[in-house]
């Protein structure tokens, strides 16, 4: 019996079209736009001015505060301007616009293909390096990694969990990374283990990626402490709390962090970025992005420089199909539709999916038929139908009591609802309202 988390979950069609497409390098575009908020936390402060020449890998925005991250230039060229840019939500946020000239990297970056196994830096130096290199969680949440690696006094971490689950349908960026850069990923895991001072790391991979599981299992014996585990395919297994429950059978209490049960979860993409930062001195300015869709002529996985417009990705994949009805940034369940193909790829972009028109419409909303499928689907033991009603009617105090803030917004309830009710839409609204209410209460 394969391991999995016990409560809830759904199994959407996998549609991993690009699972066999090797990662290619996307050509550097003629200009990039690099937003300064690509992470959770305070926006970084821009350090460059109009007309400055920057090189690939040069720091262009500095982290402000503990929960923040540095931003590096992904190309070499002249800073055209620092202005507002439309992000994936359509709202404006500050960004650095760079016109590309050649591709001159900062000298300190090791561009060779040689794999460096030996980790020379100490734990503290590794954390500093992560901060310096602007490493954030590449699974999608983009939480600054150095914060996660810093174990506060009084807490203990005894096992590291590596998330290679990639439970979202369509996306294959982590899958390809594990297959093609398996050794680098595992060295990255070793580095993370050293930073956290633990001697055990578990890599969890869903069983629909047997090639990756076999590849990493073969490599793992070289790296002491690392074991690879196959997991039953079930969404949302990639969620932190669910993965912890599945792999080490510990339950993170409501409102607490994985560190409270002695573990930390990092994504395989993050492990690879950490490897590059620590062993190759390469800051995070490039990531693997899956560009996929049923009607695309050339869907694939690409190493994309941060700041590249989504448009370039679509062009590389054979151009936008005529029947495109919706472009989603991220996975189909948690991702967000974008209204503009000029939005840049950021650190948190794991994939871009083009849905044909007939698949892009939501169901017509009808009444709740009390089937309780949403309750069965919820991995957090919540009652989505109730939370939706409470948010709809503005009963936020009751919603708080019903633990609306526990919701991780995985969307399993909306996916499963046979009445097409916008459960997550309203739960999100309730969650933000409750969080605002709690903040105001704490201020008093």
């Amino acid at each position, binding site marked *: 019996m394969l391991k999995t988390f016990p409560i809830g979950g759904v199994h959407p069609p996998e549609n991993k079209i690009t699972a066999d497409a090797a990662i290619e390098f996307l050509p550097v575009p003629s200009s990039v736009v690099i937003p300064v908020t690509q992470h959770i936390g305070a926006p970084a402060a821009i350090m460059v001015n109009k007309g400055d020449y920057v090189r690939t890998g040069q720091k262009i925005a500095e982290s402000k505060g503990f929960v923040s991250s540095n931003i590096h230039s992904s190309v070499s060229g002249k800073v055209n301007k620092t202005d507002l840019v439309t992000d994936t939500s*359509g709202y404006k946020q500050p960004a650095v616009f760079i016109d590309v000239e050649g591709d001159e990297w900062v000298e300190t970056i090791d561009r060779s293909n040689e794999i460096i196994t030996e980790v020379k830096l100490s734990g503290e130096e590794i954390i500093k390096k992560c901060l310096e290199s602007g490493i954030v969680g590449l699974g999608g949440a983009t939480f600054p990694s150095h914060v996660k690696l810093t174990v506060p006094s009084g807490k203990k971490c005894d096992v590291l969990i590596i998330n290679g689950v990639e439970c979202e349908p369509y996306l294959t960026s982590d899958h390809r990374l594990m297959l093609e850069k398996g050794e680098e990923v595992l060295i990255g895991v070793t580095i993370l283990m050293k930073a956290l001072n633990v001697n055990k790391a578990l890599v969890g991979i869903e069983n629909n990626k047997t090639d990756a599981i076999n590849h990493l299992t073969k490599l793992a014996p070289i790296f002491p402490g690392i074991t690879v585990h196959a997991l039953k395919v079930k969404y949302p297994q990639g969620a932190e709390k669910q993965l912890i429950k599945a792999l080490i059978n510990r339950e993170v209490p409501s409102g607490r962090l994985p560190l409270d049960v002695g573990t930390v979860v990092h994504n395989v993409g993050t492990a690879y970025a950490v490897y590059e930062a620590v062993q190759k001195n390469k800051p995070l300015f490039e990531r693997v992005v899956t560009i996929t869709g049923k009607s695309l002529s050339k869907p694939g996985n690409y190493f994309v420089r941060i700041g590249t417009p989504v448009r370039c990705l679509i062009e590389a994949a054979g151009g936008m199909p005529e029947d495109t009805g919706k472009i989603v940034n991220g996975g189909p369940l948690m991702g967000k539709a974008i*209204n503009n193909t000029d939005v840049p790829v950021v650190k948190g972009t794991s994939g871009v999916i083009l849905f044909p028109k007939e698949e892009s419409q939501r169901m017509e909303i009808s009444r709740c038929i009390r089937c309780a499928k949403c309750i069965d689907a919820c991995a957090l033991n919540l009652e989505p139908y109730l939370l939706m009603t409470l948010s709809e009617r503005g009963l936020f105090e009751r919603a708080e009591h019903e633990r609306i803030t526990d919701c991780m917004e995985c969307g399993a309830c909306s996916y499963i609802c046979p009445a097409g009710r916008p459960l997550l*839409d309203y739960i999100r609204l309730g969650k933000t309202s409750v969080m605002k209410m709690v903040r105001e209460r704490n201020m008093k």
Partner: protein
Amino acid sequence: MSLTVLLTIICLSILALFSSIILYFIAQKFKVFEDPRIDEVQAVLPAANCGGCGFAGCRNFAEALVKAETFEGLNCPVGGATVMGSVAKLLGKEAPQVDPTVAVLLCNGTPEFRPRTSRYNGASDCRISHNLYIGETDCSYGCLGLGDCVRACTFDAIHMNSETELPVIIDDKCVSCGACVKACPRKIIELRKKAKKDRKIYVTCSNCEKGGPARRACKVACIACGKCVKVCAFDAITIENNLAYIDANKCTFCRKCVTECPTSCIIEVNFPPRKSVIEVEAGVVNDNPNV
């Protein structure tokens, strides 16, 4: 048989007598004094319980009125001067003069002026759409058209116009309780001072962006060109955050700004038609504010 009935009646009567004596003393002991004027004031209030006064309901407002030293800051927008006057008379205080207001929508982004660049397919709720993304148009300040204000209005004063995709506020029904102002996530409904014959001149735009992007998103956006400020002889117009604002207290309804505005974002409502189009085009505008 008849004795049983009789005994039962006697026993129960004695029990009732004792209970009532005990209850009487308990009621006296725990008696809460309530100012009788609260009931009287509440009877005068409109009993709409809309919350427009800032209190939980009419009873709550009546309590506050009875307790208050002066009526400063206390006003029932629904009842207006008449109700406040009779309350003041009842309590022997003076009601301050409060100008009646009416809700206006500070957006004129119809599909014709403000093209739809995407389609929103989620839950029909402005707050959700606002939190999620910019909306169906390129304007991040304008009306989302999903009708939170319509649902918030308990006076049936707002309805959606399916052609303009914008809410329409009926002046006669609006009591300016402010429920729509609170409900709107984009804060584009303003309570403006009422004028004679419900005349209004105001800037129907809330876009704080610079002229270029604002105009690209919507043809009738305020581009903060400042022409209205220059033409206004009464200092009623100010520009802040790339947005013109007409002070209703200073405005004399001369309508010069309306003709001057290059994007037609300043509109006039409930005015009689102008004398002649040729005169207006030649720059001859009627200066008489009472026309």
